[in-house]
């Protein structure tokens, strides 16, 4: 009888151990929210002398990277503190107040699924555009706390370099007119070249005010048509 019980216990122990072999490793394979992924812009923040990495959202929420795939360290070029990033993450839980940076009001611990570093440029204020905008498709506009984030699609040849500039001739106008200039004169719509996607952020800190401001973004569409998008630039607490 005792021998039978021991055999059953041994079988159970083996079954449990074999099951555990198929389980995911720790936090790396957990997808807490199923197939839903949270997307956000933010700024990478790494305090001196502290290994913790935070991503500060535009609304002041701190996201502590509790688990990631190693992407922050393997990204090329490397993502450093202060970089504008677009992240894909899952929330694991709330942060303890002692873990929240002083400049932030609250925080979450997150599992970082993917990260994209976005190059950031300054807005040229008080000047008119010096050239015409080459055709470009603006597929995404995000008006953040201190940034204007754009996703641009354009035709490109392998050996051609493209540049983007944002002009604001009158920063004091009631409606901020922002002119996006795509510099890629040799690429035409009908030359059959490949379309490349590019994300870029423009620092709008100099344009901030205490009141919400309307903005109008001007650009030339991929078909050669002039386009305008109107939005509102919110104030942030």
């Amino acid at each position: 009888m005792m021998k039978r019980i021991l055999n059953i216990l041994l079988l159970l122990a083996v079954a449990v151990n074999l099951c555990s072999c198929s389980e995911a490793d720790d936090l790396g394979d957990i997808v807490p929210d199923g197939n839903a992924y949270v997307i956000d812009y933010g700024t990478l923040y790494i305090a001196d002398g502290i290994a913790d990495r935070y991503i500060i959202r535009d609304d002041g929420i701190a996201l502590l990277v509790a688990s990631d795939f190693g992407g922050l360290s393997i990204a090329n070029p490397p993502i450093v503190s202060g970089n504008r990033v677009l992240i894909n993450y899952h929330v694991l839980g709330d942060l303890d107040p002692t873990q929240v940076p002083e400049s932030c009001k609250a925080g979450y611990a997150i599992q970082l699924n993917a990260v994209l570093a976005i190059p950031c440029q300054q807005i040229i204020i008080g000047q008119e555009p010096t050239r015409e905008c080459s055709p470009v498709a603006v597929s995404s506009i995000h008006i953040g706390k201190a940034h204007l984030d754009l996703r641009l699609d354009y035709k490109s040849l392998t050996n051609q370099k493209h540049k983007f500039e944002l002009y604001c001739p009158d920063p004091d106008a009631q409606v901020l007119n922002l002119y996006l200039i795509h510099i890629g004169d040799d690429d035409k719509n009908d030359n059959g070249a490949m379309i490349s996607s590019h994300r870029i952020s423009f620092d709008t800190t100099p344009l901030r005010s205490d009141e919400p401001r309307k903005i109008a973004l001007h650009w030339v569409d991929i078909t050669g048509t002039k386009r305008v998008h109107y939005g509102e630039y919110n104030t942030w607490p």
Partner: protein
Amino acid sequence: MNETNDKFEKRFSDRLADHGVDAPADMWDRIAVSMAEIDAAAKPTTPPITIAPHRRQRLGLRRAWQYGIAAMLLLGIGLLANRLVRLIPQPDSSKLLAEASVLYDPATSEVEPIIDEAQEIEIAPRRTAMAVVNRIDSTPSIESIEEVESTNSNVSIESATTTPSTEGTATNNSRKSTPKKSNEPSPQEQFQKRLQEVLAEERQRSGGRITTSLYASNMSQLSNQKASPARLAEAGMTKTEVLNNSHGEILEVLSSSTPTFRHQPETKLNHRTPVTVGVGVQYELTNRWALETGVTYTYLHSTGKSEGVFTYTTTQQLHYVGVPLSASYKFIDANSFEMYARAGGAVERAVSAKRIQTVGTADKSVGISTTQQIDRQGVQLSTSVAVGAELKLNKHIGLYAEAGAGYFFNNNQPLSYRTEHPLSLTLQAGARFHFGKNE
């Protein structure tokens, strides 16, 4: 003296008439013990027979499994031995002879057997010799040749020792056989011919050949059954992006006024053509019909790609092991070529199913990759029909190819090529190895 003794005795008897002695208390015990000792000395001691209550011993689970496996093995060996014995069936010659003898029975037939001339020549000298012996025996005894010469000088010695000659056949009076010279087959020839025919028919009816095969097959879609959104979501192919709109405005979600916007990028599903490899065993029931079974392994690979703000790739890998069962009919069987039709089904079960999800960007794959095990339950049932041809390289080896169609039933299996294309063309090719009696 006698009177004195009598008086003495009378006195004792009168005095002791009323005298009684009490038996000791343990007298009977001592008697019983002594009697027991006497009995023990007289008979050999036998142990007392005790009937213990029967305790039914429960057959342990382990012992039951052992008995069951042993019984299955014995049954399998017995069946296999029976089949092996029948691999090379030998027609019962006595039975066949009994059948064939209806045409000609030398014992009962009134027709005397026809003897060839050659046999006639062989037999005749023996019979002639017997006739000479008979004649010698019937003649008066002759003690010596000299006496013959003296008694009859006209009788030559040679005549006494007449050797058989062809003329002896004329004196042969034992049989009156007359050789018949005819072009019609003799009854014996007919008998032999009929025997050969019966043996050939018996071979036709028998089977028993075992064939093993190694093969690979793939499928090509005949039907297209697009997966429903629920099915895609269940398979993890549907991705949802939650865009925080409360602190900005995103052109991609112009129509949304909610703080957050749930965006489902479209998923592009790609199923690789499944590849199946297997080992088969075929047993010929007759010269035409055969049964086939075996073991198969199938690999199913699917990829779903969704492009939203980020790029999501879901790779699904399924491994199935199955047991097919089919019947085939050979309608062309030549020396180096045969064609057949096959129909049957299969039962398959997923032995491994996992899903690998990767999140990345359009330009750079800097994202997480996670692996999940897919819950697999039940079995996959399928049916198939095919027409095939085999090229026989030699008696034991052949190359074959089949073309057919298969249908996979809806058995709640993970999303795959089969669930989206349940009706498909199948192409199978491989090698066959034949064992046993070959025709």
